[in-house]
């Protein structure tokens, strides 16, 4: 469903250039849920933005559902949609929930708008009372539900998730993760999830790739992650550090290039 070969992304030119993604290759089968884990600056979000067509400067090959993607092409809206990290920045502050959800239908010339919007709201666990609210009348979790509903309006095959719960409280995170798992089953979605949180990835994904400084360090299945048996030292350190504070682990931290 998703196939990425030798993806390379550079920002800027000359001495100040940043090699954000280095020779990244991976593929995700239909219906699979794939995770990209890494710390800030690892290039994981950039990979996602390339696949969403939001980052035009890259080299290499990328294909979605067998259709090759060029650096200048926007992917088909009905094929791939994205959910962003910050629910406070991903909804237009002056558009009601109703407008946010009906706009994709209007753009694509799909009729039957009213019932579809109601259904989409029900699908993400929001009642019809939320339909005509503005984002400032919603909590963070409710906003993220609206953002997920918006991404699903065009019934895409692939859903790209960029840290979808890292701005939310833990109890809300659980609700959103449950919702995403349920929607994945119901709609047969292929998920590509980017997160810094190994536990979230372990809960959501079948396979994952660990990224550091723009490159993939290793790829593994979720069973390996659960057993905490990574191949690479970098991943081991990441696993140890996410277990909570430990004086000895802190002393032993090294920087990997």
């Amino acid at each position: 469903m998703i196939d990425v070969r030798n993806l390379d992304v550079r920002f800027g030119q000359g001495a100040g250039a940043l090699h954000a993604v280095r020779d990244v290759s991976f593929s995700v089968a239909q219906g699979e849920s794939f995770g990209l884990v890494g710390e800030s600056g690892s290039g994981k979000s950039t990979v996602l933005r390339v696949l969403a067509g939001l980052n035009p400067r890259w080299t290499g090959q990328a294909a979605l559902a067998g259709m090759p993607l060029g650096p200048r092409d926007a992917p088909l809206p009905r094929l791939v949609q994205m959910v962003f990290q910050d629910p406070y920045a991903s909804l237009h502050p002056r558009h009601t929930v109703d407008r946010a959800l009906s706009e994709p239908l209007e753009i694509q010339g799909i009729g039957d708008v009213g019932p579809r919007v109601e259904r989409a709201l029900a699908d993400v666990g929001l009642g019809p009372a939320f339909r005509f609210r503005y984002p400032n009348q919603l909590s963070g979790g409710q906003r993220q539900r609206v953002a997920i509903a918006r991404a699903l309006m065009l019934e895409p095959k692939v859903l790209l998730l960029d840290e979808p719960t890292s701005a939310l409280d833990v109890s809300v995170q659980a609700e959103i993760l449950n919702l995403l798992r349920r929607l994945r089953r119901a709609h047969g979605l292929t998920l590509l999830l980017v997160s810094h949180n190994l536990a979230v990835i372990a809960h959501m994904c079948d396979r994952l790739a660990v990224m550091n400084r723009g490159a993939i360090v290793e790829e593994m299945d979720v069973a390996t992650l659960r057993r905490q048996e990574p191949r690479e030292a970098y991943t081991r350190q990441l696993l140890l550090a996410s277990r909570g504070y430990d004086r000895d682990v802190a002393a032993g931290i090294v920087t990997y290039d």
Partner: protein
Amino acid sequence: MDQPLLELDNLRVDFHTPTGIVHAVRGLSFTLGRERLGIVGESGSGKSMTGRAILDLIPPPGLVTADRMVFRGQDLLTMDKRERRKLRGRRISMVMQDPKYSLNPVMRVGEQIAEALRGKGPGVRRRVLEALEAVRIRDPERVYNLYPHEVSGGMGQRIMIAMMLAPEPDLLIADEPTSALDVTVQMQVLAILDDLVAKRGMGLIFISHDLDLVASFCDRVLVMYGGRVVEELNARNLRAATHPYTQGLLDSLPRIDDQREELPTLRRDPAWLED
């Protein structure tokens, strides 16, 4: 060790808004020694407001009241504004979540720390460099001359800590000091705080939403919900929490080694808000 560092009794923070009074903190009491106290809660639980209220940093229309608020034998409630301000920064310091918003963008890092030291003369530079070394910045001479935008998030947070600790306060309030950082950097910053608390005998109030982190780092944990403490725990016994809210929070966290299909979601009981 004889007298407690901070005593709070029935702390309340109310915001008088046109639509009614919002109670951000409702009757909070604790006594702090030279220890690491964690305050955990979700957004809106009043945990940040508690830290700010101790420092007298609640913006209007917020109103702070308490039956007792004593810092090292000094009554904070009767103290005038100027003395309170002097206390802030010298005896009580605060580290906030994002160093980007707390550092002055047009001032060199070293100069900002020097200002925090409120000193002049040739000795100050040396003291600033020592402060930077204390938070394990490898090349303090170079960092001294950098501007805030030239440093990474982890470095920025270390600089903030160096700045806040330069006047050697007795109490440090850290409000989500590592939430914006990568886990490995977070560990290193916590190790610095850990050492400083141990070495200087400083009191630390560590405010965070991250239960696991607080449990692994602090001695004692207060769990806040709706402006009140619902449970006080020894950090080592966090898993033995009895309050349904704390249990619910712990359960709702995904874990690397768990196989659960659905995460249990928190059922909020209105009774938790009642006294």
